[in-house]
C-alpha cells in the first residue's frame, strides 16, 4: 500500500520534472549566462573538492559584499626548493595571494604550488599547462591530516580492543564487540581460503590494516567535511605498491618459476621457445597489471561516488524549484546510502584481491602431482 503511494508520487514528480525542464530551458534562454555560470561554479566546486588541498577548510560562503569567506584552519606547507621551506598555508589566502618566503614567491594554482616571480605570473606552454617550476611539495595537506586522524583512530580502537582481551579474559568489550567479528571475517573468509592455512598468518596484519584503513577513509569521505582521501591517485598508488612489494617479496620459488616458465613440464623445451616469446612478457606484465587494477578500481570508484553525490547536490541549486530540488535531494540521499555500501565493498575488494595475490605468490605446488596429471 505504502509502496504504491510512493511510486505514484515518483511518477507525478517525474511528470512535473519534465514540465519543469521545458520551463527551465525557456528561462535559461533568457538568462543563459547566469545559468552556465552556476553550472561551471558547481563543476569547479566538485572538482575542487575532489582534490587535495593545502588547508583544512570545512566550508566557505560568499558575503553580501562579494567577499569569499572560508571556515577552517591552515596547514603547514613543506617545500623542497633548493633547501627546505616551511610555512603556513594561511600565507596563500586560499590561492588569492602569493606567499613570499625567503625572497621566493609561491603561487597556489589549481591546488598546486608553483614558483613565480614577484607578480605571480604563470607562464603557459602550448597545451595551456603552467610552465613554471613546481617545487617538490611535501606539505601536510588535508589528506595527510586525515591519514593521521584515521591512523590515530585505528590505533585507539584496535589498541583498546587488544587491551580489552587481556583485561576481560579473552572477551572484547565496547566497540571491540563490533570490530572483532570483522577481524575474524577477514581472517576466516578472506585470508584463510585465499592464502592457505599454513601461510596466512604473516599476511594478516597487512590485510587487516589495509581493510580498516580504506574502509575508515571511505567512510570519512561520506562525511560533509569534504574529504576525498581514497579517491586520490597518490594514496591508492601507495597502497597498491605495498601490495605489489609484499606479493613479490614473499613470492616462493614456485611463484617465480611460474612467471618465467608458465607451462612447466607439460611442454618440451623446443615447444616452449615459440610460445614463451609471447607468454613470458604477458606473465610479467600481469605482475604490474594486478596491483594497477587495484589502484585504479579504488580511485575510480571513490572519485565517481563523490562526483555523483556532488552533482546531485549541485542539481538542487540548479533546479531551484519545489519539485526538482527535493527530488535531487532524495536521489543524493539514496546514492549516499549506496556509497556507504560501496565504501565497505571497495575496502573488501581491495583486501580480498590483495589476499588473492598473496595466495598466488606464496603457493607451493606439488610438482609430482602435477607431473602425474600431465601424463
Amino acid at each position, binding site marked *: 500500500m505504502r509502496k504504491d503511494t510512493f511510486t505514484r508520487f515518483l511518477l507525478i514528480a517525474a511528470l512535473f520534472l519534465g514540465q519543469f525542464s521545458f520551463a527551465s530551458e525557456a528561462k535559461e534562454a533568457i538568462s543563459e549566462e547566469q545559468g552556465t555560470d552556476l553550472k561551471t561554479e558547481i563543476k569547479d566546486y566538485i572538482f575542487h573538492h575532489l*582534490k*587535495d588541498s593545502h588547508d583544512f577548510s570545512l566550508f566557505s560562503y560568499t558575503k553580501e559584499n562579494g567577499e569569499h569567506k572560508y571556515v577552517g584552519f591552515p596547514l603547514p606547507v*613543506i617545500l623542497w626548493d633548493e633547501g627546505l621551506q616551511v610555512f603556513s598555508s594561511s600565507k596563500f589566502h586560499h590561492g588569492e595571494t602569493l606567499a613570499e618566503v625567503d625572497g621566493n614567491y609561491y603561487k597556489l594554482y589549481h591546488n598546486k604550488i608553483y614558483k613565480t616571480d614577484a607578480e605571480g605570473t604563470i607562464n603557459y606552454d602550448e597545451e595551456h*599547462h603552467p610552465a613554471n617550476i613546481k617545487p*617538490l*611539495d*611535501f*606539505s*601536510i*595537506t588535508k*589528506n*595527510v591530516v586525515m*591519514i*593521521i586522524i584515521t*591512523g590515530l583512530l*585505528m*590505533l585507539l580502537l*584496535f*589498541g583498546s*580492543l*587488544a*587491551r580489552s*582481551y*587481556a583485561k576481560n579474559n*579473552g*572477551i572484547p568489550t565496547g566497540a571491540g564487540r563490533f570490530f*572483532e567479528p570483522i*577481524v*575474524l571475517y577477514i*581472517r576466516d573468509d578472506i585470508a584463510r581460503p585465499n592464502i592457505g592455512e599454513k601461510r596466512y*598468518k604473516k599476511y*594478516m*596484519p*597487512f590485510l*587487516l*590494516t589495509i581493510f580498516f*584503513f580504506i574502509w575508515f577513509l571511505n567512510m570519512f569521505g561520506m562525511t560533509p567535511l569534504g574529504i576525498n582521501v581514497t579517491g*586520490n*591517485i*597518490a*594514496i591508492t*598508488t*601507495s*597502497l597498491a*605498491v*605495498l601490495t605489489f612489494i609484499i606479493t613479490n617479496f614473499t613470492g616462493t620459488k614456485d611463484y617465480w618459476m611460474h612467471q618465467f616458465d608458465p607451462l612447466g613440464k607439460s611442454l618440451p623445451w623446443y615447444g616452449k621457445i615459440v610460445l614463451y616469446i609471447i607468454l613470458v612478457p604477458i606473465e610479467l606484465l600481469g605482475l604490474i597489471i594486478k596491483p594497477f587494477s587495484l589502484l585504479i578500481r579504488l580511485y575510480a570508484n571513490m572519485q565517481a561516488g563523490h562526483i555523483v553525490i556532488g552533482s546531485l547536490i549541485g542539481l538542487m541549486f540548479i533546479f531551484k524549484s519545489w519539485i526538482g530540488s527535493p527530488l535531487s535531494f532524495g536521489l543524493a540521499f539514496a546514492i549516499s546510502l549506496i556509497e556507504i555500501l560501496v565504501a565497505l565493498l571497495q575496502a573488501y575488494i581491495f583486501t580480498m584481491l590483495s589476499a588473492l595475490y598473496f595466495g598466488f605468490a606464496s603457493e607451493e605446488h606439488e610438482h609430482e602431482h602435477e607431473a602425474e596429471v600431465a601424463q
Partner: protein
Amino acid sequence: MEKLLEEFSVGLFFWQTLLFGLLLFLLWKFAWKPILNAVNDREEGIKNALDAAEEAKKEMQNVTADSEKLLKEARAERETLLKEAREIKERIVAEAKDQAQVEGDKMIKQAQAAIESEKKAAVADIKAQVANLSVDIAEKVIKEELSDKKKQHKLVDDMLGDIKLN
C-alpha cells in the same frame, strides 16, 4: 592518463607510504598481534574444552560400561552362588535322606533282629513252658490215667490202635 599523472602528488605519496608503514608497524605490534593471539587462544580454549568434554563423555561411557560389566559379573556370581547353594542344599538333603534311610534301615533291621531274637526267645520260652506244661499235664494225665488198670489198658489199646492206623 595524463590527467591522472598530473593529479599524482609525490608529497602525498611519500606521506601516505610513510604514515601507512608506521601505522602498519604500530598496529602489528600493539593491536593485531595481541588481538589475533587472544582470539587464537580463545579458540584453542574452546577446542580444548570441547575435546575435554568429549573425553569426559567417553570416560563416562567407559565407567558406565565398567559398572555394567561389574553388575553383570555380580549377577552371574550371585546366580552361581545361589545355584551352588541349591546344589549343596539338595546334596545335603539327599545325603541326610540317605543317611536317615540307612540309619532307619539299620534301626529297623536291628529292631527286627531284636524282635526276632525276642520272638525266638519268647517262642523258646513258650516252647519250654509248653513242654513243661505238657510234661506236667502229661504227668498228671498219665497219673490220672494210670490210676486204674482199666484205663491203663484202654490207653495201651488206643495207642496201639493209633500205631496201626499210622
